């Protein structure tokens, strides 16, 4: 206090928030735990959903870890790293986003005591990295590879992976139905490339989710049509399809062009010329033999009626993504001019039809020769409902895709985590020094997954975990949590609760990295909020004061 007499050195801008040292580290850990706690109840087959309402009043119901974190709009710097790993997991494997966050948070929680006791974060990080390596090696050692050569058994593997990924979601009760759909969808794709963006998803409210269907081909909603469209034929067999990027409308050719008509007799010539332009386009299309005409740009009423006259189907303003998928499916290419359309520019499909689905009419292309694409049409009682189905299916599709790429699986339901935990624990006991403690902490952190599954399902987690530890100590490496049975544990490999091993490899390594990252931070320097902060001028008055007060109280303790 005496030193207060000395002149203060102003180093940083007024209002800069600096916090450093151990308290900072611990407070970061608490922030991460708070996030993980929110997420924890969504894990496992009895996980619950979150309803998140944004400022604009849009509601989303979801069970997907990455989606929840995105919607929560987290600003705490350390906690944001958790959001990032969830997002990375989502992008990389698409599933296991909740587990990765829980793992990272639990690792931090386990070492918190050591930090308080003054163990250097560096040592902990070293221990974590070693343990992580051990875990990854162990997964590689015990994973089960499924033979891709036998299509029958490979397909059943994919089905199981898909249904495990769905078990925590809303569509849980229709698992067999949807996993079949997902696997078929993925198998539709080019097996080399597996570009999941070629799986189109269309949502139509109404109907039960059992009424969802998979179309081997492309489907898109009937576009806006002009008078005359109803007179066009609505179904074809083996039509030629032309995809255009041309506007077929009677209109001024150039916006700012002006014509000077010298004599009255020329007047009709101009009019005729304009008609000639559009008619020439239309005739070129007809001559090419196309029966289905699609365009990215509008097709006007004149063209619609002209086509109707000649029994040709047309649709204008087709969304780009849909048109792209049509091209992928039927072959051909998108034409940006009507002159010189040759046969090779046209695609074809086995059957084209306009069909009523629920309250909407859909244009459906089926039996496409190049079918490397398919469309999922999802039905459900409410919009949020269908959206959640879509997210769940996305996860499942990603998992199946990963499984197709490398057919290695491990048992889910906490089995693999228990095994890794046992393995690391055994190894830790053989090494001297502080690292031993850290590795045991890592091993313990892995147990959060089975524990949380039990908690969410209302089972006695301590009891179940003890049973599992016993089983794993006896070398029964695939024992995991069973939420349905009376015992609470079972061999999940036999029960077909399978997950691609890649999901776990990625989850464990990124969780470790995130934990290490947070541990290595010991100081936050936050610049003062600029005058017009992006958060809007209505930052709650309480927050800033609280943050200031917090700093004032935290510092003098050192």
């Amino acid at each position, binding site marked *: 206090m005496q030193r207060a007499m000395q002149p203060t050195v102003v180093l940083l801008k007024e209002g800069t928030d600096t*916090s450093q040292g151990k*308290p900072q580290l*611990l*407070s970061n850990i*608490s*922030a991460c735990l708070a*996030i993980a706690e*929110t997420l924890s*109840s969504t894990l496992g087959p*009895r996980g619950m*959903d*979150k*309803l*998140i*309402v944004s*400022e*604009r009043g849009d*509601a989303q*119901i979801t*069970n997907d870890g990455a989606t929840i974190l995105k919607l929560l709009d987290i*600003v*705490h710097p350390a906690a944001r790293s958790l959001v990032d790993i969830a997002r990375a997991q989502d992008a990389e494997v698409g599933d296991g986003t909740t587990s990765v966050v829980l793992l990272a948070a639990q690792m931090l929680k386990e070492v918190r005591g050591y930090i308080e006791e003054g163990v250097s974060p560096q040592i902990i990080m070293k221990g974590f990295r070693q343990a992580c390596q051990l875990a990854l090696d162990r997964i590689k050692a015990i994973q089960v590879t499924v033979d891709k050569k036998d299509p029958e058994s490979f397909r059943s593997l994919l089905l199981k992976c898909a249904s495990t990924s769905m078990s925590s979601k*809303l569509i849980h*009760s229709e698992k067999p139905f949807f996993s079949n759909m997902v696997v078929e969808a993925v198998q539709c794709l080019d097996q080399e490339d597996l570009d999941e963006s070629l799986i189109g998803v269309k949502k139509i*409210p*109404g109907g039960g989710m059992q009424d969802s269907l998979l179309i081997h081909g492309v489907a898109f909603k009937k576009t806006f049509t*002009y*008078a*005359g*469209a*109803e007179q066009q034929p609505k179904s074809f067999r083996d039509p030629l399809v032309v995809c255009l990027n041309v506007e077929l409308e009677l*209109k*001024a050719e150039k916006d*700012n*062009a*002006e*014509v*000077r*008509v010298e*004599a*009255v*007799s020329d007047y009709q010539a101009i*009019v005729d*010329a*304009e*008609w000639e332009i559009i008619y020439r386009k239309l005739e070129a299309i007809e001559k090419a033999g196309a029966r289905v005409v699609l365009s990215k740009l509008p097709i006007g009423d*004149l063209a619609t*009626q*002209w086509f*109707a006259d000649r029994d040709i189907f047309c649709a204008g303003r087709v969304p780009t993504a849909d048109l792209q998928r049509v091209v992928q499916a039927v072959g051909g290419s998108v034409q940006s001019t009507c002159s010189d359309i040759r046969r090779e520019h046209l695609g074809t499909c086995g059957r084209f039809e306009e069909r009523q689905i*629920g309250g909407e009419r859909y244009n459906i292309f089926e039996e496409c020769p190049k079918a490397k694409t398919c469309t999922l049409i999802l039905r459900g*009682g*409410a919009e*949020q*409902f269908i959206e959640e189905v879509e997210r769940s299916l996305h996860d499942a599709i990603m998992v199946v895709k990963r499984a197709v790429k490398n057919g290695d699986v491990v048992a889910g339901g906490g089995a693999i985590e228990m095994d890794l935990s046992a393995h690391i624990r055994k190894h830790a006991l053989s090494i001297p020094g502080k690292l031993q403690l850290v590795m045991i902490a890592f091993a313990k952190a892995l147990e959060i997954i089975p524990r949380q599954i039990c908690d969410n399902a209302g089972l006695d987690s301590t009891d179940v975990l003890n049973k599992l530890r016993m089983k794993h100590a006896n070398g029964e490496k695939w024992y995991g949590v069973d939420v349905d049975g009376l015992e609470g544990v079972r061999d999940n490999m036999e029960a077909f609760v399978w997950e691609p091993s890649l999901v776990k490899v990625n989850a464990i390594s990124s969780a470790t990295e995130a934990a290490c990252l947070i541990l290595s931070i010991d100081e936050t320097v936050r610049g003062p909020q600029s005058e017009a902060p992006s958060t809007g001028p209505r*930052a*709650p008055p309480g927050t800033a004061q609280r943050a200031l007060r*917090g*700093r004032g109280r*935290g510092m003098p303790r050192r």
Partner: protein
Amino acid sequence: MAEPQAMYATDEYGRPFIILREQAKKTRTHGVQAIKSHILAARTVANVIRTSLGPRGLDKILISPDGDITVTNDGATILTQMEVEHQIAKLLVQLSRSQDDEIGDGTTGVVVLAGALLEQSEALLDRGIHPIRIADGFDRACVVAVEHLEKISDKVEFTLSDTSNLVKTAKTSLGSKIVSKEHDKFAEIAVDAVLAVADFERKDVPFDMIKVDGKVGGSLADTTLIKGVLVDKDFSHSQMPHSVRDAKIAILTCPFEPPRPKTKHKLDITSVEEYKLLREYEHDKFHDMIKRVKDTGANLVICQWGFDDEANHLLMQNDLPAVRWVGGPEIELIAIATQGRIVPRFEDLTAEKLGKAGIVREVSFGTTRDKMLVIEECANARTVTVFVRGSNKMIVDEAKRALHDALCAVRNLVVDNRVVYGGGAADISCALAVAKAADETPSIEQYAMRAFASALDAVPLALAENSGLPPIETLAEVKSRQVKEGNSVLGIDCMGRGDNDMKKQFVYDPLISKRQQYLLATQLVRAVLKIDDVIVAGQAEE
């Protein structure tokens, strides 16, 4: 909400930290408390429309912010117009809307069922059963119920000549509506309309071909079905003949004007001669147009655009009745009905492109000078128009909605001709089947299944209550008779006819409608039960 603050965490040093943006404004409800508040919201919504169920159900009056008044009995309409705020309540609104989109009928029933299911699950939650297990149990029960529905369903036979069964179904659907006084007439209109447009091979009923138009005036009994097209327009010149027999119709989408290029253009007139030339040109054009139309043999012109007095006069002189400013969809409908082609310019007009209709006539109403154009005896008989009359706008609107429901009910039968019996008979029968299956289920789900069975009773209960019968007593009696006699067609006798046999009273519901109700309601309940955490961002301030 008990915890006004979302996530407010402090570390060991008492330092609070901000994790979320705008944290202080977010509200969070968590756990069982969240589920319960959802259940409460859903029940409130269900209770609002419960009283409009059944033939003795009452109507609601809804006043929009603009002061527009809607009187209706249709579940989906009530919920849509109520503009609910609560998130879960919004789900219910969507639920009834999707029943409306898919089936078009039974929108009240589905919400009442969902509300009842949630009410039942509240009791189970209090007993400490995990929400997801409740949902699992409901799912299982739903499967049993749907299977049972198929078992008790009956096929109704109908042919184009014998439509009595379809009429009865339409009557059931209309029974609760404002038009019930005229429901014989409306039911027949609905059946005739659907049968006129139905494609029996593909089992498809294109609703686009049925146009429902309404006009205030007259009474509901004056409602008619026009086998053709009705256009709210009159002939362009008052001296034109008011009806045309054996009409050959030219359907044009170009104006009766000298054609103009779309490109911006300018014509400089510098001398009198040129001006005269222009005058001449225009004059020639008009004559040319009329001639072209005449040459094809057309005796009626329907134009999407307008034409000025000169053209009007010329048309009149040449005995060409014409209609102007007919909208795009109507043009299309006329073209389909008369099997004509829409012609974009006069040069393309040929005799084959003309539409044909037996009679086109102008009708006027009462003392008003409103006139409408009726096109009948068209070449293609598959377009129909229902023209609804009523003493005021609200009644006309409600009658249109009722008619839509009836059309949907008939369509559903054309698509799938299996029916179950209404008046709660199917619900009671399913309740019994589910209750029986529950006793055979070994796990905890049996409680949920039993709850599902009691929730199914909600529909007959509400029916009885709305009909002024003692609900519990009536239900108990019917239920016991169903068990004793093994007869699944016994239901609530809402109309007091002294007979509980719904088969004899001809109270039918299409099977797909009932099935859809069960599936949708169960899925919604699962979605609601699965939510244990609600995070609401603060309202954006002005």
